[in-house]
């Protein structure tokens, strides 16, 4: 517990609140960047991803009395990021319906040199996956989470994680294999 003094030098009168602040700062240092990257994979937009992750941190701060344990808090953050990304994506889909169609260009050629091409292809294929499959692939292969952790973050059963993973990976394989 961190000792915090108020203006009159009285120690630790608001220890619970300061503990939450310390915890948020520590969680930020440990997880913020990777959570933004996870959300970016899910949302395809860094700005939206940052907002979603910041929302999640504010929520954790609000629930700190209940969470306390940093491991629980990290799991809660992941859950919140996945859920909020889903909501944001639903909202964006509604907006997209009114947006003009993309020009028939060849955008994936933009970074078409050596390894960058493969990356562009995989990311494009990831974007084409159904949302649940995309979430599982990102949490497993980028965030390196176990099946149980993924199930917890997504609010589904471990069996469903397996099924989404195998379908997602099969779809991505068709993209990666021609590049081998």
């Amino acid at each position, binding site marked *: 517990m*961190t000792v*915090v*003094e*108020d*203006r009159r030098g009285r120690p630790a*009168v*608001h220890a619970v*609140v*300061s503990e939450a*602040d*310390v915890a*948020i*700062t*520590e969680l*930020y*240092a440990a997880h*913020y*960047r*990777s959570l*933004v*990257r996870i959300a*970016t*994979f899910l949302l395809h937009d*860094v700005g939206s991803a*940052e907002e979603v*992750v*910041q929302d999640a*941190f*504010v929520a954790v*701060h*609000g629930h700190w009395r209940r969470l306390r344990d940093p491991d629980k808090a990290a799991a809660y953050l992941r859950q919140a990021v996945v859920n909020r990304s889903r909501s944001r994506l639903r909202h964006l889909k509604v907006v997209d319906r009114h947006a003009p169609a993309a020009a*028939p*260009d*060849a955008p*994936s*050629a*933009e*970074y*078409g*040199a*050596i*390894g*960058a*091409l*493969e*990356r562009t292809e*995989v990311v494009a294929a*990831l974007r084409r996956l159904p949302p649940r499959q995309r979430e599982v*692939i990102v949490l497993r*292969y*980028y965030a*390196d989470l176990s099946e149980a952790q993924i199930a917890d973050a997504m609010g589904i059963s471990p069996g469903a994680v397996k099924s989404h993973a195998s379908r997602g*990976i099969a779809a*991505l*394989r068709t993209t*990666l*294999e*021609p*590049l*081998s």
Partner: protein
Amino acid sequence: MTPYDDYEDRLREVLLAEAETVVPAGDGLTRIRERVERRRARLRWLRPTVSLAAVAGVAAAAVLIGSVGGDVEQTLRPDPGTPGGGSATAPGPMPTGTAAPALTSGVTPIWPFTSVEAAQAWQAGGGPVAQPWSLDPARTAAHFLVALDADAVSTVLSTKLERLGAVPGVQVTLGYRAAGAPDRAVTVVHLVRLGTGPAPPYAVRFAGAYRLQVSGLPFFGFLHSPTTVRGTVRDTAATVVVELRRAGAATGTRLASAQATPGANAWTARLAFSAAPGLATLVARSAGPDGRTEQLTAVPVRLRGPSRPASGPGGSVGGYPATFVAAVGGRVAVLDSGTGAVRRYLTDAQPGGGVADLFLDTFGGRVYFTRGTGTCGAEVHSVPLTGGAETVAIPAPAGGRSENAVVTGEGGTVAYTTTACSGGAAVVAGSLGGGVPATSYPAPPGHSVRLLGYRPGTPQVLYLDSVGGATGTLRLLDTTRPAGPLATASSVVPTPTQSGCHDLGATYDPAGRLVLAAGCAGGTVRVLRVEVGNRVAVLATVTGGSLGPVALDWDPAGQALLLGADGHVSRLDGGRATRLSGPVATWPVW
């Protein structure tokens, strides 16, 4: 490893590489604090004393975390100008409608210029009047294709600003356009603007294609004759032709050409050439049954000459060069890679002036080193690897010293440090030939900087930043950034924490992975390679090492690593560390 494992590893690698391009703005913690505070303000009438303690609490927390070091510094002290620290440097296309900023260092294009000096000479020689197309990226890209004899591909489909890695530039997509049919992109030409003054011209860095690529060959990778190059092609009916051309104005000259042998979505081609060492362009193009160019890729390579230093004057043994270079008794010496014995000296002994900070410019075939010239003085000298006169490469500034030069793999660009006798250090980036204004990045007061080398294929310089002899922090300087504080132009390199250890040196292997020398309790030096997913591979543990600076250098083929610590040189190859029994030698480089 099963194909499935390999496939999953590749997927993991691709996602991690893509994730690296996502850089949060750096003000996340501030925004969270503000929102927490706003939320508190709404509740303040209920709990009037919470707010004050909370603000103090968050501030105290920031101080606590600030002492953890590493990557945290970047997140807690956001700097909009820092690579990775601000949205201004976030990856992705820049807004259209403005010209790309002109660069004076940090990038080596392939056409029509291969250096900033050449671009400046073109400017001074009336180039903007004679070849006004050089001032327009789309027209420059079209002229590049003419130089490659692909002038049928002349329709510019799109032009937009881009930022590839840390380098700002323009990408121009060229291809075919026909009424009633979708556009067909043939190639995307990536250009940069070079030079100074009112009319800096554009130059091509490389061209990429969607369905045709060269694989297994890094940018500026070495080619020797004969060589087999490989790649992938998405259209199995296409014929692939591979050519090797000189870089720069002589691109019209073919050095070698071969029709590729097709495979399953892949091709291989064998090229034989007898050209002198230097920069070249490897061009792969696919054509349909009608002979029309369908896809075109052009990447920079380096031609390895017969006297290329990487194989050493004594050739190659055990997959690594037979000789290396190190400082022995205040002189630059060529040593035997097997025994560590001195084969010959490249410089004479000079009373009162030793040598340090050796760096081998494999492209130029010269050894750069710091030559002590007195109590405070030092300057960067160089000597040809094959023997010859020692010359001043970077003179010392008035009232100070220049030292610790590192050169890019493709040559031409150098970074070094300057230190005033009264204190105050700076990193300077410029061109080896001079003639281009160098860019200076002053270090914070009290900081000392040791440059470790350029990150392969990038204009970023890896360095160790330390304060008052304390444990150093690894940072990357982006030399395309304008002159200004070093802390602003650089960012922290996150390194995996090893209990009881601290970083003493680092380098990149030829595949671009970070390799660290960590000094650990008990006087051991652990050599670690940072793998995909921030996993760590311990390459070797060397006992009896000191906790002073450690020099690390891979041979260009990636077969063996030299480690210099405490006056001794060790060679790491095939999973073994061999301590060489030669004289006291420091700063070993292949």
